[in-house]
């Protein structure tokens, strides 16, 4: 599904070139559950953003489901992204002015899905995540764990093939974190959604089928 070849990313500061990613070669198959680990500044998030097409590498090739991503037109890439990728953040990043229902609905709006269908999909999602009772609340009225639940529901509402999660449990206590991880596992196993997560926690990393260790922008080891 994902084919990364010789991915480099650097920034020039002063006369020096600082590498964020150095010669990353990685292939991920559909249905994989990958955990990326590594110390702060090792390039985990950057790698995730490159995979999520939010960031462009300085060099290298990225093939996503058979398409060479960086050779595509902006519009095509945006469509590809909209249809297949969902994001979950450490800080949830729900829109404060929207209710739970509306937050989950938003990705569908950008895919031009008709109102009635949208309603059905969102209702289904609320049901599945057991947050029907909270649908009219605003993010500020929810606990962190509940907010992240909404975040995950929002990321999955458009039925993406790939779910990218940047430290999804970083702001949660261990019990809440565990719930989210169980949820991920379920999604991965039952729906076949490919998951790539960045994490600091060994325990959470162990939910993945493969763990990639990064150090100074390089893949140090895979297990």
């Amino acid at each position: 599904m994902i084919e990364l070849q010789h991915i480099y990313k650097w920034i020039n500061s002063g006369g020096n070139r600082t590498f964020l990613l150095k010669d990353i070669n990685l292939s991920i198959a559909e249905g994989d559950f990958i955990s990326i680990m590594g110390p702060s500044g090792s390039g985990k998030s950057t790698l995730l953003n490159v995979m999520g097409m939010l960031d462009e590498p300085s060099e290298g090739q990225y093939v996503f489901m058979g398409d060479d991503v960086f050779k595509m037109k902006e519009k095509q890439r945006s469509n590809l992204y909209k249809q297949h990728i969902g994001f979950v953040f450490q800080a949830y990043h729900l829109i404060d002015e929207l209710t739970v229902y509306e937050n989950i609905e938003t990705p569908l709006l950008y895919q031009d899905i008709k109102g009635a269908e949208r309603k059905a999909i969102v209702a289904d999602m609320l049901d599945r995540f057991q947050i029907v009772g909270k649908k009219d609340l605003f993010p500020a009225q929810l606990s962190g764990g509940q907010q992240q639940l909404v975040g995950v529901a929002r990321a999955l509402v458009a039925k993406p093939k790939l779910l990218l999660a940047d430290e999804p449990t970083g702001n949660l206590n261990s019990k809440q974190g565990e719930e989210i991880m169980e949820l991920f596992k379920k999604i991965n196993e039952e729906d076949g959604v490919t998951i790539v997560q960045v994490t600091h926690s060994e325990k959470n990393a162990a939910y993945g089928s493969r763990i990639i260790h990064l150090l100074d922008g390089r893949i140090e080891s895979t297990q």
Partner: protein
Amino acid sequence: MLRNYLKVAMRYLVRHKGYTIINILGLAVGITCCILIMLFVKSEWSYDKFHSKSDRLYRAWVKEKYQKEDFIDITTPVVMAPTLQSNFPEIESTCRVAAFNSIFKSGVTSFNENLRMVDSTFFRVFDFELIKGDRKNPFPTSNSIILTEKLAKKYFGNSDPVGKSIELQMSLDTVVFSVSGIAKEAPVESSIRYTALIPFSNAKSYFSKNAMRSWFNINPETYVLLGKGVNPKQLEAKFPSMLKQQLGADYKPGNYIINLQPMTTIHLDASLPDQGIENISNPKYSYILLTIGFLILFIACINFITLSLGRSTSRAMEVGVRKVLGAERRQIIRQFWGEAILLTLVSVVIGIIFAAVFVKPFNTLINRELVLRPDLFFIGFCLLLIVIIGMIAGIYPALILSSFKPVEVLKGKLKLSNNSSIFRKSLITGQFVVSIAMIVCTLVIGQQMNYLQNKDLGYGKEQVVVVSTHKPVSKGMPLAELFRNELQKIPQVASASVALYSMAQTPWIDLGYTDDKKIYRTFQFNAVDPQFIPTMKIQMVQGRNFSADNASDATTAMVVNESLVKQYGWKDAIGKKLPGKFEQQIIGVMKDFNYESLHTKIQPLVLVIKPDSVYRRIENINVAAPRQPRISVRMKAGSITANIAMLKQAWKKVAGEQEFDYTFLDENIAAQYEQEKRTSTIVKLASGLSIFIACMGLFGLATLAVVRRTKEIGIRKVLGASTQSIVSLISKEFITLVVLAAIIAFPLAWMFLNKWLGDFAYRIDINWWVFILAAFIAIVITLLTVGFQAIKAALSNPVKSLRTE
């Protein structure tokens, strides 16, 4: 999608109430100004357009050249209209309009009324509404009269006036007219106004025989309706050959030119003198108002932009998330633009409500009767406002916010580029440029108004009552003299004087003659009695006043002013005669006095008792105001109402039924500056509003600046900064901008004021301290606005602000 945007926008606006109120209130005030000004400008620019034939209607005016001097006459010879009509088939129709005063009487009701004498084509050429009567033949006889509803009601109450008779005082006789129709009053936007109309066939009783024939005697306005497709320029070119034939020996090429002025341009054409029957308006005031409206709106729009920029960091997160969720840039742009337009929409609605409330005081302010009507034009105007303001106010936030990269935003790495902070600073500076320039204008215009009211005019203007006889010289003089003699018996009257023209009633007569050295000279002229100079408290610098005991003074003496003596270059004027053929000897020289408004310079002036021999010696006479003797009465201190009642009683003794028409001299003088007074009030209000809106924006910005710098302030406090130093840290940023704005505003204000003051022959100099004062005011207001927030920030507990990280 739209609903989602709308929901977000509404919730955002409600959540950030302060920000919303500042924006909406600022815009609404700006929009209110715009709507009111639009009403005024629309009215000004639509004069005479209601005539269905307005594109073919012209007013004829004459340019005469005499001894190298140009004379422009808006009123025209009586013979012009019929001559044009019979000579040129291109002219479909003509209509003359002449203005008079006459005493109307029906039963016991009698008043002095303003009257128009018009050709019977009046209702065919123009679109004035006739409620009762025949448009084609409105005046069945020479003694037919058409009244407006209001006048009909005044004389006939609620009964049907048609066919009833009314007496009019025609120069010497009383003539009975029969009401043949009722006309609706002319629309506000009309250059022809009337309360009563009589046919032009009555001209014989008003004009002298000479005036009925002469091309050099001017009286009615002449309107011309051209045939379809006739080019007025080509027609004008044909006039000279006709004039050559008509004027005979008096004609020289180029010395008598008839021009055609499109009727729809009359009201705002300031290139021709304002000497027609109705006053015209200077388009300058439309422009001043338009500029003011635009500037206030500009300030409100800037508030919108700077405040959205100030908030952009908090908004950026949402943009980042939306982009991650699949939003494209154009969708984000649309969202923010939509938000701006929504806000504008709310502001426009509030603005319309404000405008409806304030249209009345605005009418008083500009002396109009504007009506706020929701017609197609108005709705279109409001829609246009919404779109334009929404677009302008929303453009920067829409473009900037939509350009954020989600990765940077979501990591909290976002920093507004230096460019945008320069942009924001220049916008704030722009607001202050406008505000400071307006403060300067308010101060200087206020000083000039003060000067106008307090300048020593060279005569005493207090406690003088002016009584008009409303009668031509032959009848008015005896009446005035009778009245004066009656007044002299009243102890409360200090003195009374009869003159052709009174002070502040302008212009007096302009006379021109060629002196013995073939130099063409002009001077102003008035016929007075010996009491005039003492009554008006005019100072004599040389010689003596006319003497009532010296009968020969009436025909052989003249008193002149200093300006005349200066013009002729005399050292001692006493005993001299004007070089030429005048009989009168100069017996006294008066100190210069401003009988005209301070817009005009003092001209050479001649006063005599009996004017006839002077008229015989001059070549040119320009009489703009009717020669109707007036009595100026200087009262001793006392109750005004009691004094007036006494004067009224004396008037009744000599004039019987005729209305007692009086004015106060000081009020007449103040009336000369009506327009300026209005400008002054408008500028004062506008600068108040602009400062208010700018301050609201500033307050919002200061709040945001404090929020943005919470951490910095916390750190500084931990490091030992004093409250004072933090307040100055926050304030300095804004004060610098105000000082910069002041430097830009000064030359702009100076240029405008110089132009405005150029209208006055007597004016103040613009003082440098006015500028300093304006800048000082702006700085104080800024400090008060920003200081509140700054102090709040400086007093906050640093532990709290630093813990948030």
